[in-house]
């Protein structure tokens, strides 16, 4: 039997069975159970941290303005805002992934490109954020700025460098694992599909 012979049976089978027991209006009111939507709502929840940061800053300033003479506080807040920006970026990426109205090939290729670019930028971002910490600390030593980490300056430069390098390798490893845990299965599935095209 050839595929041609199946046409009539396919038409009869898929027309005789009743697919719908659900109401379309109810369906569109319900939330998507797709992992993309789950990720989207997860990132959306994280976005609440963005307006929370300036509020926290204002409250802290009102209660203890002296605190803001310490550069560490400014550094932590800067880090917080950068992380907030990254959360926003994540949210937009997941939103952009959910546009299935393109042709199948285009959709798969676009998703692969977006996710690979996202990983590249994530690596650059994490490296930048990580480098800020040792550079900030070492500059504070050099310019004798009080940071609250004075004990760290008593440690020898060799040990400090080793800790910075170890931290950098650990950061690269952990960030890669984190990204793969979010998108790894999906990227490999997309690449498998692209190979079938």
């Amino acid at each position, binding site marked *: 039997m*050839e595929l041609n012979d199946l046409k009539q049976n396919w038409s009869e089978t898929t027309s005789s*069975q009743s697919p719908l027991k659900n109401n*379309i209006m109810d369906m569109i009111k319900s939330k998507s159970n797709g992992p993309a939507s789950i990720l989207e709502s997860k990132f959306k929840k994280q976005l609440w941290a963005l307006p929370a940061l300036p509020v926290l800053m204002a409250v802290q300033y009102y209660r203890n303005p002296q605190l803001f003479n310490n550069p560490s506080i400014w550094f932590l807040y800067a880090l917080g805002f950068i992380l907030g920006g990254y959360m926003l970026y994540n949210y937009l990426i997941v939103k952009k992934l959910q546009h299935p*109205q393109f042709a*199948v090939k285009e959709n798969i290729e676009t998703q692969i490109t977006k996710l690979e670019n996202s990983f590249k930028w994530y690596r650059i971002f994490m490296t930048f954020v990580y480098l800020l910490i040792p550079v900030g600390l070492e500059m504070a030593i050099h310019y004798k700025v009080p940071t609250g980490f004075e004990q760290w300056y008593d440690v020898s430069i060799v040990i400090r460098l080793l800790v910075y390098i170890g931290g950098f390798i650990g950061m690269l490893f952990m960030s890669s694992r984190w990204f793969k845990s979010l998108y790894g299965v*999906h990227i490999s599935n997309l690449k498998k599909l692209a190979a*079938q095209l």
Partner: protein
Amino acid sequence: MQTENLKELFVQKINEHERLIYKICHIYTRDELDLQDLFQEIVIQLWKAYPSFKGKAKFSTWLYKVGINTAIAGLRKKRTVTESLEHEKLPATIDDTQTYQQKEEQFTQLYSAIEMLNEIEKAIVMLYLEDKSYQEMEEILGINEGNLRVKMNRIKEKLRQLTKNN
């Protein structure tokens, strides 16, 4: 008010084309629960994408694009579609005597062979069974016509081998 009108128009369109969604689900999964889940997921994705439907292409073409993309390439952790079953045995080969029952068995055998195809091949087979022209298939899948013809021949040969060997 405008959203309500859009909703009503959308529901009407989906009611007219629900069989197409069902067919996409049917080619990718046989499990009843998965089928219902996939059906709902496709409807939700269609609704999300509906504002971007400008009516330049046929509604059915647009629906196939969203439906197939949702079924095969939606970001997912668990698989909602049937895996290609490379090593699974097909139902036993039957004689050529064309009784009704035997013909039904042959259909079952062919459907089982289709289940062993990869996701893109399944999409091509479904569009072929739906009597879509190569031009329409190109629009939906984004694979050029020449390549589609080659793929179609390979799929037919693959199905022939699968039904013959088992």
